[in-house]
Structures are given as C-alpha cells and as structure tokens.
C-alpha cells in the first residue's frame, strides 16, 4: 500500500493524543478509510493466520482479551483492538497501528460492535467469526434484536467458504445461525448448578424461531440462554463441541472451570467473577481452538489474564477496593447484580447512569433490570451520572428505604462519597454505563489509581 495514506492517518492519531482528545483509537482509521477505501482488506491480507472477529451484545471485550491471552501464550504475535474501539474505524486504526508495531504479526483478533460486524466482516474477510449472544440493548441505536439476527445471517452467507463459525449453543438466536455447510464449533455451559429458578423478566429470544411457540428450558443460565427446546420439536439447543462441564463461582473473585473440548479437557481459574464470565471464558477457549491455538496452554493463559478496563477491574482507592462492573443493558446488569450478591458482606454500591450516544439516549432499560434482590443487602447505595434521578426513581419504586439512597449526579463527588461511606478495607461495587465508566476511570487515572485505557492490554 502507498505510504502517504498510512503516514497521514498515523499522524492524525498522534495529534489526537497530543490534543488530549483521548487515545486516538479510531481517528487514524477514519482518516485511512477516507483516503483509501479497501485499506482494511489490504492490511489484513498479509497475515498468515488471518483475522478473527468476536461479536456479542455482552462480553466481547473480555472474550477478545482472553482469546488474545491464549494466542499470545502460544507465542503468536497478534494485532488486536484492546482499547475497545470496535467500529470499522477502530478496527482500521488497530490494524494500522498493529502492522507498524508488529510487522511480522501472525494474526489479527478484533472485538466488533454487533451492528458494525457485517461491514467489518465484508472488508476483512475473516477466517474465524465468534458470535456469543444477542440481548436487547440500546433500542434507539441498534433497533430490534430480530434485525441484528437477520443482519448476522446475511453476513454469514457472505463469509469466505473456509471460514469457521464459533457459535453459542445456549442462545437460541445465535444457535439458529448454525449452517450445516460451514465449519462450526459450538460452545455452551453444561453445569446444572448454574440454573436460575426461572427466565428473568429481560429474557428476549424465548420463542421457537420456526413455529413461534414459547421455548421450554431444562435450565436457564443467563437471560434467555440455557438448555432450550421448542415444545413441538422444531428446534432445540444443539450439543456443544466445547462444553464447560463444571463451573465453580469463587464469590466475586473469580471462577474455576473444567471445559471439555475436541482437543481434550481444559481447566482454567480466571480472576473474573460470575456466570456471564463463564460464557466469556468458554467462548474464548472455543475461539482459540478455532484459530488453531494448541489446547495445552490455553487454560493457563486464560487464567492469567487480567480483567479488561471497567469489566471486573479492581482499583484501590483510599484504603477501599473499587470493583468496576460495566452494566449497560438489562441482561448484563442482571449478571452484575447476581455477581455482586455473591459477596456475603453488606453491600456498598455506586450505580452510574449516563445517556450519551455510547450509552443510548433512552434510559428506560433500567426498569427491565432486576435490582430487587439487592434491596435487603444494601448498606449504602449512591446513584450518579447524568440520569442519576432516573435510577433513584427506579429504586424508590422498587421499595428501597430512601435513607440508604444518595443521589449525586456528579461522578467524582459520588465516587468520593461512596468510598467514604464504606469502612476501610471494604469493597465498593461500581455499576456504570459505558461513558460513566470512562468518566470514573479518568478520575482514577488522574489520581494514579488506574492506568489509561488506551495503554490497557
């Protein structure tokens, strides 16, 4: 490729960082795509092991990070978008930066926004595509879930014929994308101890995609995921190839998994809590195997990976520990609630709701979250962010005692107040939307408590 386009695009990134406009994680890609359409395909074409794309409503950043750890553990040189810029421009920027920093890279691995995936796949012609889950999320931006399912189906039709699909057998919508003509690796959770008592309110894809009948569940794991079947026998959860047969939840600290795979059993003890992370780890193992990473090192590599920024990240502040658990849609927020409840201590909570474009302008989703199980366990709750008062109403109508509820829209003041409320040595769980998480991390970075996200990874 002619050098001027690359040079100009990289200069834009340096300028962005120099101007304090963030890490320049998408601007260089935008410049490159403008100067030279098709640049992404040209940059990726030289990678001997091609590109892998990971997409989902929830868990794509963590799963990409775990998969990166597995590939790097096997000695692969990898290009990845670890800073989380996951639209076409972010992928282009990561490739641009990656081929400069790692001229002999073996492969690229990108987490991709679920709506951007068809276009990114068309440009990149990936060897492996990992599809993890689809939940209702930012209806004002993504539209209805059905539309994403259709867009993904169209994307799969246009993939190179030798591409491998990695699909979640437990999500009825994702599993429906199974195409017998394609190389496919299915993954799922097979530990009956994980079952929820019933489908949560926020369950989405709960009807048979052939006949419309309500699916029956042998067990529900997360949202509408689990062991599902059409009552009239049209469709059922396919038997996964990569199965987590034992998942032990180690409180809010982490997980211990035993995963059966076609390449043998893999044990992993990642420092990531909750059932949703059991899915992320299992997906990452399946992704790594599909990419051709040898099975023997995957468990250790995944177990050694640190949490991605804001996703189970732990930060020390004034003698307390903050645990940042990004919560941006009902299914994801339900899992953070479930995870926080694994802590037996009285809970100090900081919940943050912003309504910027990256969060979704429509904040009605908080009414679909099951916050109610927290009520009897909360020592102090601080709600913050631009829509802090909407959260306050959510808890008022849930029946919360208002004496334990503080409303402080200003993120930094709210964080300080929540920390001051908690005894020294205690944990403060922070459940922010995306831009609220970035805002709080910026404060933590300025105070030297956390690292800047574009240096993350």
């Amino acid at each position, binding site marked *: 490729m002619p050098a001027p386009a690359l040079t100009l695009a990289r200069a834009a990134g340096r300028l962005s960082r120099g101007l304090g406009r963030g890490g320049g994680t998408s601007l260089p890609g935008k410049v490159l795509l403008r100067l030279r359409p098709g640049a992404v395909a040209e940059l990726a074409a030289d990678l001997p092991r091609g590109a892998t794309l990971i997409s989902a409503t929830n868990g794509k950043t963590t799963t990409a990070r775990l998969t990166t750890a597995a590939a790097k553990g096997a000695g692969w040189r990898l290009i990845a978008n670890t800073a989380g810029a996951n639209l076409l421009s972010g992928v282009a920027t990561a490739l641009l930066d990656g081929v400069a920093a790692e001229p002999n890279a073996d492969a690229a691995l990108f987490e991709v926004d679920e709506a951007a995936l068809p276009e990114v796949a068309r440009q990149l012609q990936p060897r492996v595509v990992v599809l993890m889950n689809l939940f*209702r999320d930012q*209806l*004002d931006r993504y*539209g*209805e*879930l*059905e539309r994403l399912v259709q867009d993904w189906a169209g994307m799969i039709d246009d993939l190179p014929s030798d591409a491998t699909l990695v699909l979640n057998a437990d999500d009825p919508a994702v599993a429906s994308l199974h195409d017998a003509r394609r190389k496919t690796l299915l993954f799922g959770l097979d530990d009956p101890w994980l079952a929820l008592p019933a489908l949560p*309110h926020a369950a989405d894809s709960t009807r048979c995609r052939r006949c*419309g009948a309500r699916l029956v569940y042998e067990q529900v794991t997360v949202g509408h995921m689990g062991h599902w079947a059409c009552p009239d026998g049209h469709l059922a959860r396919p038997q996964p190839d990569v199965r987590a047969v034992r998942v032990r939840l180690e409180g809010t600290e982490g997980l211990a998994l035993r995963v059966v795979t076609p390449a043998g059993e893999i044990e992993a003890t990642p420092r990531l809590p909750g059932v949703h992370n059991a899915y992320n780890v299992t997906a990452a193992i399946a992704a790594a195997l599909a990419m051709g990473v040898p099975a023997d090192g995957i468990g250790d590599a995944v177990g050694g990976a640190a949490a991605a920024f804001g996703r189970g990240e732990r930060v020390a502040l004034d003698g307390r520990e903050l645990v940042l658990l990004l919560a941006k849609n009902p299914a994801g927020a339900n899992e953070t609630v479930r995870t926080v409840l694994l802590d037996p201590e009285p809970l100090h909570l900081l919940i943050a709701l912003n*309504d*910027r474009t990256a969060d979704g*302008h*429509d*904040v*009605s*989703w*908080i*009414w*679909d979250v099951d916050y109610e199980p927290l009520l009897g366990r909360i020592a102090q709750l601080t709600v913050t962010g*631009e*829509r802090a*008062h*909407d959260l*306050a*109403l*959510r808890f*008022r*109508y*849930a*029946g919360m005692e208002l004496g334990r509820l503080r*409303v402080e*829209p200003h993120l930094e003041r709210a964080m300080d107040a929540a920390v001051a409320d908690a005894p020294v040595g205690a944990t403060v769980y922070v459940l922010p939307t995306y831009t609220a998480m970035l805002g709080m991390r910026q404060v933590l970075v300025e105070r030297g408590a956390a690292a800047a996200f574009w240096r993350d990874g």
Partner: protein
Amino acid sequence: MSVVRLGHLYPDEMNIYADRGNIAVLDARLRWRDHGLAVDALEPGDRLEPGQHDLFYLGGGQDRDQAIVARDLVATKAAGLRASVEGGAAVLCVCGGYQLAGHGYTAVDGSRMPGLGLLDLDTVAGPTRLIGDLVIEAELDGERHRVVGFENHAGRTRLGPGARPLGTVLSGHGNNDHDGGEGAVAGRVVGTYLHGPLLPKNPWLADVILAWALEHRTGSRLDLPPLDDELERAAHEVAVGRPTRR
C-alpha cells in the same frame, strides 16, 4: 381502601420499553395512599369480561410479537375492551400499544395490521424511525402539564375527528413529525408514544389515570392525597433539559 383491578394486556409480548415500570408506578402510588392494585395478565387466547377491570394497560412490542398480538386482540379481546370502555374503564396504551388502539397499522410493504378501534386514529409506517427525547404539553381533566419521555417509532399517526391529541409537542417528533400533536385521548382512553417509561417521571399523568380507575371501581370521584414527589420532579426536570444539554 379500594383495590383497582388492572388488565395488563400481553405482558410477555408487549414489554419492549420497560413497560413494567408503568405498572410499578400505578401499584406504588395506590399503595402509598392505602389502596391496592390487582394485576391480571391477559395473554393471547384469554377473553375478558366487561366490567371486571377498572383499567387496561397495553405496552409496546417487537414487530414480530406485535403482529401476533394484533390478530389476537381483534379475535378475542376487541369486543370486551370496547364494552369495558363504554362502561367507564380507563385504558393506557403506549407506543406499539397506542398504534394498535387505533384502526390499524400499514407497514412499509403495504401490509395491514388491524387495530382495536378504541381511538379514532390510523398509523402508516414512514421511511425513517422517529427517535429521541420528547417533551409535550398535555391536557387531561382540564389541567395542563408538561409530560416528558422518549419516543422510538416508525409509524406516523393521524387522528380522526373522534379523538384529540394528548398534547402539543414542545420538543421531539410526536404523532407524525408534522402536525405538532402527540398522543390521543377519547374519554378515558389515553394513547401516547412517550415511554421512558412514561409514568415514573410524570406522576401527574399517573394520578389522573388512577383517579379514573378508582372512580370506575367505587362509583364516586375520590380525592387522591398528594405524595412527596420530590425525586419525580427532579427526574422530570433533568429529562426536560436533556435534548438541549446532551
């Protein structure tokens, strides 16, 4: 103390914009005044007996679910709902439910979904979705109040002479992005595109509807004592400011 009986239409299919928040508000605001709310889920296939319910709620759904619901509404519920409304029951319908309360919905491909005919209005899908914060000045029971929320709809709704708009658009799109009207009212039937959900940040509207339902239950108009709505007012003010400040 009185227990208001609510018929919640299709809670599993029509719940896309956090409609359960509206039910939670109706329930709490009755409880805080020593009344109660009994909720009956009215599912596909269920029939309803006119006179039993004081209030009906119909929320919004995904296109696929909405088509299932439209057929069932006409087949099993339309006659019962019309008789209930004639008997003084109140109806609140939001977003997709609002469209279904009219004469019908014409999709982009020209296909037609039937409606209940509770409100004299008709909806035709437009080329774009109308999405964003929505602030209106609404009028009910002779009182005017600002009502705030979020809209997300492809349908353009036009009212016939049998219904009047719930309010006028102060900012946002409203019924059709053209005539400045939002929502529709006919007697005790209220429809609107406002969600967010609608009632938590608009307690005045919640109380108007509860007063109608209580009147249907008890046969006389009861005064609803005021509640401490400081948080509701604050959340309302924040939402009013969002379109310009974001």
